[in-house]
């Protein structure tokens, strides 16, 4: 039905008989492209086009502000800009923050509290939880507060040691929030409120990251393209959702994602959006690769080399795509940037998982149970992050700027 070429679709659309494929699609298909794109802009503008730009710049300014330590001006400017769009976009913050009183405060509880929100990434939950730590802290000196924060982040990290984004998010938060040279010039309370400000801003940035990435990646999804997706990634879903909402015409190949069936879940979500989806078994990637225009994957963590750590199978998909000269795009929020540098697949803490083969496996047979693999930067084309669209090598630059 679908072919590789975009012209085929346009042609088809002109003929106006595209309805054969999906019953709900014809209206959108019959739209002419310029119309649809302008429609898309109009559609996107109210909810995030303005915040997108500002948040993007804020993120960058804030990140550089941390490093160059002249954050004061920037932070204030950013906060000033920030205050208008913070209120509408985040109604749930006060609610969640206020749900914490009563019992003795614990980061983990707070973290889990935040995690209950389905849409909130783990790292963002952690960042929010850490922000609450600052808010509810009874420390009286900066050092104390810092130590408290450190402890909290350590306990968060130890809560799930295999989660790269959690660790990276905590680290980045500490960096971002506490590395402010201006703190010395202020009294503790104002310093603390500044920290809270920064913490919330960071939480906000992280929260919005997904939207920003979705917006940034729209330029890369063209009409008639075929996108191969591996695993279930909320960022990728957001990207595809945004593309579908902007009336882009594309289809998605979902890998099955054994053993957790993450691909099935994604295909469900996409089907709800009326995006044509085809499910593949994981081993059919190479078979279908010549139909694919681009590979879109999320990431558990982006490591210093610019490579990614992601669900098992990403590496082989990237390899196949590379050998067939298909671009591999990674959608990942910047809080997933981790100071890790795996040299090869075995050079990282394995995240093991049970695998159900459906039949009993003899005990003598070993099972590879690692849940994720490492894709070297060599095989990635671009990374869509809230810092912008980056080549893999820029990741390290950003990390160096953040951490040095």
């Amino acid at each position, binding site marked *: 039905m679908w072919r590789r070429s975009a012209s085929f679709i346009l042609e088809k659309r002109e003929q106006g008989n595209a309805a054969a494929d999906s019953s709900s699609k014809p209206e959108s298909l019959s739209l002419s492209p310029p119309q649809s794109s302008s429609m898309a802009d109009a559609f996107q503008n109210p909810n995030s086009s303005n915040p997108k730009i500002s948040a993007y710049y804020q993120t960058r300014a804030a990140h550089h502000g941390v490093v160059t330590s002249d954050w004061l001006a920037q932070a204030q400017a950013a906060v000033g800009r920030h205050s208008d769009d913070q209120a509408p976009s985040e109604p749930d913050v006060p609610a969640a923050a206020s749900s914490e009183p009563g019992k003795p405060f614990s980061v983990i509880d707070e973290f889990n509290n935040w995690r209950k929100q389905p849409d909130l990434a783990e790292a963002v939950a952690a960042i929010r939880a850490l922000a609450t730590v600052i808010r509810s802290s009874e420390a009286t000196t900066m050092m104390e507060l810092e130590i408290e924060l450190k402890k909290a982040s350590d306990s968060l990290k130890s809560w799930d040691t295999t989660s790269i984004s959690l660790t990276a998010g905590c680290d980045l938060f500490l960096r971002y929030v506490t590395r402010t040279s201006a703190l010395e010039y202020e009294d503790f309370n104002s310093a603390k409120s500044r920290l809270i400000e920064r913490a919330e801003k960071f939480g906000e940035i992280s929260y919005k990251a997904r939207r920003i990435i979705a917006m940034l990646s729209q330029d890369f999804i063209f009409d008639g393209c075929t996108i191969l997706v591996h695993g279930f990634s909320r960022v990728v879903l957001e990207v595809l959702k945004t593309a579908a909402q902007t009336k882009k015409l594309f289809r998605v190949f979902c890998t099955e994602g054994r053993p957790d069936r993450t691909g099935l879940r994604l295909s469900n979500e996409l089907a709800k959006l009326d995006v044509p989806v085809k499910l593949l078994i994981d081993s059919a990637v190479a078979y279908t690769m010549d139909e694919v225009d681009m590979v879109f994957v999320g990431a558990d963590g982006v490591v210093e080399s610019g490579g990614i750590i992601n669900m098992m199978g990403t590496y082989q998909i990237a390899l196949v795509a590379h050998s067939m000269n298909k671009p591999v795009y990674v959608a990942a929020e910047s809080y997933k940037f981790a100071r890790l540098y795996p040299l090869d697949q075995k050079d990282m803490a394995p995240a093991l998982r049970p695998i159900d083969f459906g039949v009993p496996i003899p005990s003598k047979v070993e099972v590879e149970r690692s849940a994720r693999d490492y894709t070297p930067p060599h095989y990635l084309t671009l990374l869509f992050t809230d810092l912008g669209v980056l080549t893999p090598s820029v990741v390290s630059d950003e990390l160096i700027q953040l*951490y040095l």
Partner: protein
Amino acid sequence: MDSRRTPRSVIDPKVRQVGFFAPPDRTNSGQPDPISSSSSSPSPPAANISPSGNSLSPVMIPPPRHSSDSRPVPFVPHPASPLRRESIPAGSSYNPSDFYPPATSPTAASPSSFACRMPVGGYGEFSEDVVALSPGRAFRGSSVRASASSSFPGGGFDLTALKASSVPASELTTVSVFNLPPGIAEKAGGAFVEMQNDRHVSSKAAKEKTTKAERRALQEAQRAAKAAAKAEGNKIPGTGSSAVTSVNVKPAKGVKAALQKNDSVSVAASEKKVADRPVEKDRKKDVPQPRMQYDDRSRVEKAKRRAVVYQTEARNRVELFRHLPQYEHGTQLPDLESKFFQLDPVHPAVYKVGLQYLSGNISGGNARCIAMLRAFQEAIKDYSTPPEKNLGRDLTAKLSSYVSFLIECRPLSISMGNAIRFLKGRIAKLPLTLSESEAKALLQSDISRFISEKIILADKVIVKHAVTKIRDGDVLLTYGSSSAVEMILLHAHELGKQFRVVIVDSRPKLEGQLLLRRLVGKGLNCTYAHINAVSYIMHEVSRVFLGASSVLCNGTVYSRVGTACVAMVAHAFRVPVLVCCEAYKFHERVQLDSICANELGDPDAISKVPGREDINSLKHLASSEKLQLLNLIYDATPSDYISMIITDYGMVPPTSVPVIVREYRREHLWI
């Protein structure tokens, strides 16, 4: 013959003016000279040239005789002018008889040393961080020399000599004294000289009369002069030069006349340095990559000259590497050693380090850098600002002269260049309000801090990072002997990690054997292989750890020759290659090959196997003009073959080197 004439005729008119006309004219005429104006500031050439007018000719670069077989003057191997070509054979043929006997005595050695130092003093400014420039200076000097010589057709000698006495002092006048013998030697020595360069011969006609005995007398005079100069304190350059010019006129002048020449040489050299300095700085700003620039020009020059390069000189140098300073080993050491106790502009500590470089006692980037910095520390400790001089400027000039001395001993490594740049930056930023002792103390502590922070602590951090990449059961391969890698291996062993080490080594230095010895001594499991076997051994290796002399801005790793080979084989076997390098060795230069910047080792080292008569088949071929020996010291590994660079800033991909360089420079500003 023709090929030589054409370039000369091009250069001639300009430089003739330079030699004989009034100072303003000189500077003006000096500028148009494409070589001198681009390779250095206009004024230094003028300074150089004016004296060359009074002296005869092949003066600027002191007797290449030293370089040709006794001294490692780095730039001499570049045949910059036809004259030099002639003078070199002369030197080589005459040295044994004329110069060696005196050379055995310390005093006689001195003229040669001064002669050689002189140009170096000039190019010391370049050398602080850019080794490559040195040849550029040599180049310019020689071109000047060439043209100057050509400007004295026939018996121009006396006339110029007379003129010289009125010309203000400059190192060139003095050096011309030393140059006499080779000139004469040339005359007497080579039939080919006449055949090749009739004009030059005529210029030397005046000298021609001097016999061997006279030359000997001249040498005696020089020797005496040297001895006397030791006793003499500072002399005003003017007197020195006049004395020397008089020597010029009458080679066998008395001791008195000659005796100042030492002073004048050194003083003039430093003077020239000072004069050059500001302009050099400007030039440096304008030209970010002086080394490359030189390289280009040298190629042009080389092409001009290729046909007539004298064989003995070309023997050791491969065509492609002519632009590199030839580093010859051995004979110069006693020379230098004998000078150790003489009154010298070089501080003894620096001198010692220089000799150690020369003899190879200190090798390895960190060791050399630390030794140099410690020597500078000593020198600063003993330093006192001369009256009416500014500490900052004078000390910088002094350091430059030390550095140029060290370059003579062995070309600087990039890490040393960075360290020198750091030190000079510190000197330049000294607050003017500081007293001398405070400033000195500050500088000394700065140096100590540099050593401890940028080298010693950096190594510790590197070890800490690198050890996380060593797992039980690993087989680690290393090449040559890198101090950082050694520390990593030992530390991992201390941590109880179970791993095996493969040490790959190569001729001629076989540094790996020393490493092997130390590692085995500590109880590590080692395998030793030569680089020939690297493709065989690589399949069992799980990590390759390499040291680096420098990491350049495009991620290229500049390291011991052979490193690129190992890295490429490892890459082909999909073995991760980890390069351990302190961030102070990073350099903002971009280099794509190992040709344009490199160091040449002693060619004999690869042609001879000591103690193995049975395989020394090249023994009698060494002098063959058909044989070119290339002993490269470094090579450049493209960043594609590097998986990771471990620095004191963490583990970064090679693509991030520019970021580190940027941050690092900024940090320098902060210091």
